[in-house]
């Protein structure tokens, strides 16, 4: 098990004003995003495609460079780590991708794929490694007679189980699931969700669970963060978020996903422009163009990050929002 214990007050992963841009800074993909993931907890990161969720995930893994801000893992900035520290951190952070068929190397057997991280981090002796691989396969619900099979011999759901096994084999503290159940059938999705919940209860792994599906997030997350065009609009504990969403965009997403309410009629501006990141004016709220509750001030200045205070503050975690509807003096009655 983990030898390093994080101080309970420190989050396992903390992002502070993370910014990422592409094409020589002409296209801002992530704009001053801050959130934190607590040990053993699941944070659901929600947003439309192109909102910058995957860029955040890739920056945490150092697959893309950050332009500014910090990514603190157990209090250390991932982008400033020395190679040995980084190696240790990489062993503790793993990822599961959306497309199971693309996330395993077609020319390598299950055993080769699963042994690779263990060999790379020099974990255990060769016999211990193969024992670990067999054990993890059982944990994700596969027999160890599949060890010498190639990815194309498996169904989509089985491939995703193998990808999860590869992520878990180094006993990580944090697993990033980037739309890990989005391309799956409902039945397979349910199986994988079930598996993730069991694993989390058993091993106490924290998840950064990226999804555009709020119902999936509700099922699995302890906290929710909402992104829109590179910015984080709201972060709240799951129960608070699903009962009292603060940001108009969060409310829209919730009403879209809920079955019981009649679907709202949307205008074109609200939907058909989810990926136009480039034309963002820094002096306005990013959501002002699509917002149903837009005010004159929204077009003139960018809202600051506000923490919503509650009268009976017994909820875990804070509720932060970036919206001009709220200011520091707001106290929610409930």
């Amino acid at each position: 098990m983990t030898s390093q214990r994080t101080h309970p007050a420190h989050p396992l992963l903390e992002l502070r004003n993370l910014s990422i841009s592409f094409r020589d800074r002409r296209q801002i993909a992530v704009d001053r995003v801050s959130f934190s993931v607590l040990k053993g907890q699941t944070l659901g990161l929600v947003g439309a495609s192109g909102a910058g969720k995957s860029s955040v995930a890739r920056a945490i893994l150092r697959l893309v460079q950050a332009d500014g801000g910090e990514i603190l893992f157990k209090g250390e900035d991932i982008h400033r780590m020395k190679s040995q520290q980084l190696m240790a951190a990489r062993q503790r952070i793993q990822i599961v991708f959306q497309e199971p068929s693309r996330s395993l190397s077609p020319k390598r057997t299950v055993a080769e794929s699963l042994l690779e991280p263990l060999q790379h981090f020099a974990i255990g002796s060769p016999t211990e490694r193969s024992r670990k691989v067999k054990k993890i396969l059982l944990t994700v619900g596969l027999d160890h007679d599949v060890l010498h099979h190639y990815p194309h011999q498996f169904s989509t759901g089985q491939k995703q189980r193998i990808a999860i096994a590869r992520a878990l084999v180094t006993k990580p503290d944090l697993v990033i699931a980037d739309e890990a159940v989005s391309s799956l059938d409902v039945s397979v999705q349910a199986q994988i969700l079930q598996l993730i919940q069991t694993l989390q209860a058993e091993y106490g792994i924290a998840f950064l669970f990226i999804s555009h599906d709020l119902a999936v997030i509700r099922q699995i997350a302890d906290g929710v963060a909402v992104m829109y065009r590179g910015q984080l609009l709201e972060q709240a504990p799951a129960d608070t978020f699903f009962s009292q969403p603060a940001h108009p965009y969060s409310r829209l997403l919730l009403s879209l996903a809920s079955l019981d309410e009649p679907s709202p009629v949307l205008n074109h501006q609200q939907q058909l422009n989810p990926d136009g990141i480039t034309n963002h004016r820094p002096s306005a709220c990013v959501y002002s163009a699509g917002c149903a509750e837009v005010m004159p001030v929204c077009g003139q200045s960018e809202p600051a990050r506000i923490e919503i205070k509650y009268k009976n503050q017994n909820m875990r975690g804070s509720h932060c929002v970036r919206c001009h509807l709220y200011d520091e003096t707001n106290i929610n009655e409930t």
Partner: protein
Amino acid sequence: MNTAVLEVRDLNLSIDSSNGPHQLLDGVSFSINAGETTGLVGESGCGKSMTALAILGVLPATGMTIRSAGIMLNGEDLTALNHAQRRRVLGQDISMVFQQPATALDPVFTLGQQIAATVHRHGISGRKACRQTMLESLELVGFSQPEKIAAAYPHELSGGMRQLSMIAMATVCKPAVLIADEPTTALDVSTQLMILQQLKRLQTEYKTAILLISHDLNIIRQCCHTVLVMYCGRLLESTDPESLFSHPRHPYSAGLLGCIPKLSATRPPPINAIAGQVPALTDLPPGCHFAPRCDRAIAQCRHTAPEPESDNGRTVACFRPMP
């Protein structure tokens, strides 16, 4: 008085292989009324898309054979048509929208050219008339500036806009039946909703019958008048969505419903997945195909396939349906 626009009678599809023919579709029968939507649900690899392709008579692989007691479109049997007649019907009386608008559109032509080509092929001559019809179809699916969309190439549009253009192309000839195969699967929630709203609008305007194929039960619930639940090429249950969602009778339907994550104010209990996976079509279990994964299965289920039984407008093929 409802009239069935499309009636599929005992549709069978088999494929030859080295160890004998495999049944891809087995006795599929249903009908769709004008202006109504029928949803077809099931896991991947259960034959949903095959059903669509078999209705259109376009088979993706060689060695496939269709047998049926008739596929009636407005009283005309599609299976009796010859090649030329079928080509006239496809796109004009019955058309299809695919899951991947990015690959279903030709990247070297503008959308206007592609839609106009469809219009032209189905009997409207004259450049001006063609263009007029084309622009109208784009306007109908909700584009406020159809000229701009018509002049665009597929790669210049977002996924949602491409899918809307696909729908414009499929509905430009005002078909009686529209088959939509996972039309919103690759899209964002808000875009999904927009596409479905446009489909609904077209439907009320032209009384189009829609066969909506989806694995997303929420979408089926919102849009359909009838739901068909398919598993391994057989229809296991057909009913209206409300009774399906409140009282599923087939254990498979119940299992599928249990898989949907619920959006509630309090945290839902852990999800209940159906164990196991869809068997390969080359290796179907005898009797009821669902029996090996079913917790209500009895000995009889493992050797005899239950016949569909109708009761009160609801058809279930199960020996031990849910109470």
